[in-house]
């Protein structure tokens, strides 16, 4: 679970989610990583995992508080317009990993629409994300990646 964010304003969402997920799962099987604007470094974090869930702030024009959920194939296409707030963005990192054949088998992006959201909205979205992540991990379960 890669939680992307920065300490600034609503962009802290990813870091908040990482904090909330801390110590909730067996560390041998599930890694929760907080990434502050990782750029190309994301490739390193994607490597070696059978399933990855990314959470980041996105901008698509949807109302603040919307939580998008995109599967692998939808990600690059969608992100061409929904740019992340960071420099060498998520879209580029995922496209590069895809080209290098380093994408994990399963990849999901939770994209939180935040913009000028209030603190309450950010907290609510973070809570929603935390429960979605919990459900997702239960869903893919231990049998889906027995090598770990």
């Amino acid at each position, binding site marked *: 679970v890669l939680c992307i964010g920065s300490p600034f304003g609503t962009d802290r969402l990813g870091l908040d989610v990482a904090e909330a997920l801390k110590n909730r799962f067996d560390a041998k099987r599930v890694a929760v990583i907080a990434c502050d604007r990782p*750029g*190309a470094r994301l490739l*390193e974090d994607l490597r070696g995992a059978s399933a990855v869930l990314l959470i980041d702030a996105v901008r698509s024009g949807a109302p603040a508080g919307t939580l998008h959920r995109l599967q692998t194939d939808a990600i690059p296409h969608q992100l061409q317009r929904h740019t992340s707030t960071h420099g060498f963005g998520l879209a*580029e990192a995922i496209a590069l990993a895809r080209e*290098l054949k380093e994408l994990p088998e399963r990849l999901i992006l939770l994209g939180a629409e935040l913009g000028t959201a209030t603190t309450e909205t950010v907290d609510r979205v973070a809570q929603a994300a935390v429960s979605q992540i919990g459900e997702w991990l239960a869903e893919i379960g231990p049998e889906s990646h027995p090598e770990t």
Partner: protein
Amino acid sequence: MRRLFYCGEWIVSHSLHIHLLAAPDFFGCENVIELVRREPDAVRRGLRLQEAGNAIIELLGGRSVHPVGARVGGFSRAPDVEQARELLGRLKPLSVEAEAMAAWCAALPLPGDSQDFESVALFHPDEYAITRGRIRSDRGLNIGKEAFEKHFSERQVPHSTALQCLHDGQPYLVGPLARLNLNFDLLPEATRQLAASLGIAWPSRNVFHSVVARALEVHFAFTEAIRLLEAYIPTPTPHLTAEPRAGVGFGITEAPRGMLWHRFELDDRGQVRSARMVPPTSQNQARIEQDLRLSLQAFGMDREDAEIRRRAETVVRNYDPCISCATHFLDLRIDRRE
């Protein structure tokens, strides 16, 4: 430890710039994704080198979130000996990869365009300067860091939101090529031999050689990091206690993109009264504009707009401006007159 930290920063920044920004331009690719299709092994090698740089930064506690490593007076803690040894084992085989990358960069079809410019960098008689030294240039400048403001001034220009720093009113170059031009003789023997084998005469007046200078500095940074880690003995005092007192202090280092100058004024409680930082990007700003003018004149304007745009973008990206500005930065309007 600070020098080792910087070696990590240089490796990460240079490797990313070479593969994500510079090389696609010289291969005629739109971006790194296209470059992967043509040069997959080179890109993978670049990422391996960059990741080793990240590992150096991590050893010193520079995690990407809530960094805990560097602090006033030194570092929060000295790295563990076992971890340092592991890292050393990981870095050693990569020197050869850095060598191969430098040869790959030197073989890029770089434009041959000599220009007249001033190179400015830190100089230290005992080492390839990173964290200490005097400010020198190849036109005779030789000053301490406290004298920076007497010789360098930043200005605003109407056409840009970026500050431009000038040396006695003139543009100048900082960064890998400027450092190599001034401090070539202080590189380790292995890096000098590698540089000599690449068929480029150093110092160089061709700013496009910056990409090769960056690759050579990656090789240097690996060599230096290995040397530092081999000699590593943990200290019981990773940092000294700093007692706040009123005064003005200066700091200067060679960040990956070039000289970075700081001035802080503190009160007797240690609170900052005023601060000024001059980053390398502002120092190269006027040089980029000068280079654009000279490069495009040398390139010839009797060409298709797309070709001119391409060359102009290549010139700008060659300076390693920050990634987010470097991918969408050029608003090209050509006013052709008969």
